[in-house]
């Protein structure tokens, strides 16, 4: 069973199979894992659609399955996987992180407290926040 890690989520993908640097996943699972859906106009997420390059559809789509790694790399996003192709990280690009930071809108996040309760940054909207990191090491 292939595990796909994306942002903070971890998804077991029963429709996924890896072949070297290719990661074929059912389009539905790919959408659940990353938010990108396959539409006639290409790959879409929110307001953005990215057309499949003409003449090269076979690199990205096969029936109901998509090569998530090929699409991810085309978007200049990092892709890494373990040695047996069982765990894949679909990472975020420097461009995406930079654009977000340059907007000066503090990127929101959801993280658990010690009790396991998920908390967000945005729940503190309306207050000044000192977001401070620390570590035991």
């Amino acid at each position, binding site marked *: 069973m292939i*595990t796909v*890690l994306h*942002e*903070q989520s*971890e998804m077991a993908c029963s429709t996924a199979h890896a072949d070297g640097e290719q990661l074929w996943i059912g389009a539905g699972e790919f959408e659940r894992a990353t938010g990108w859906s396959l539409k006639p106009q290409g790959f879409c997420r929110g307001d953005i659609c990215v057309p499949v390059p003409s003449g090269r559809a076979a690199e990205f789509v096969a029936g109901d399955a998509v090569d998530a790694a090929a699409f991810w790399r085309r978007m*200049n*996003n*990092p*892709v*890494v*996987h*373990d*040695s047996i192709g069982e*765990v894949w*990280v679909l*990472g*975020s*690009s*420097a461009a995406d*992180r*930079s654009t*977000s*930071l*340059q907007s*000066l*809108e*503090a*990127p*929101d*996040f959801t*993280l*658990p*407290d*010690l009790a396991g309760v998920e*908390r967000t*940054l*945005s729940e*503190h*909207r*309306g*207050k*000044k*926040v*000192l*977001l*401070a*990191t*620390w*570590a*035991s*090491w």
Partner: protein
Amino acid sequence: MWQSLFADLKDRNFVVVAVAMDGPEAARPWLETAKPTYPCLIDRNHHLADLYNMVNVPQAVWIDEKGRIVRPPESAGASDSFRGMNRVTKQMTSEQLAQRERTKTTYASAVRDWVMKGSASEFAFDAESARARLRLPDAEIAEAHAHFRLAQHLLRTGKSDEAVVHFAAASRLHPDSWTIWRQAAKKDATGLATGPEFWARVDALGDRPYYRPIDMKGM
């Protein structure tokens, strides 16, 4: 670390959100001892380091009531004074201790000034100044975070030999990141990554800072 500041200022529409770049079991003893009354979150994947392009702890970001960045990530009052410590006795000279205290106090006072005065505080950056002080990631840093995420997962699923490979890749791609390196490094009995390898890596900085100097009057 922020408890007294928070206790003083919490009625001023202010909150500290403390995030441990740690797994819950590493963070637990510290939190159970200190019992902070502000939200303390656990970021075992170092997601914040990826989102905000952070490289060390403690680092902090000032965020206003509208969720806008007022001061981009910077050392949260920590200085390089520790580098002069006696590595055998772990002692610092009174001058080193004074410098450490000065940096900490100046930073805390600046936070206090901002909480009291908002955007009128001399320590609050306007949009142009904040943007100019952002440090933005590059493709190698983005890839480093992906390797780190994989490494943490492999560690949790019992594949520590393979995790080591990806931790190493992450550090190679993002050599400025101490959060990546120290999370992966050997720890002593109290969980600290301050062994000989740490000191060697610090020494290798030469004149470069461990904590970039804080861009603030009084520092």
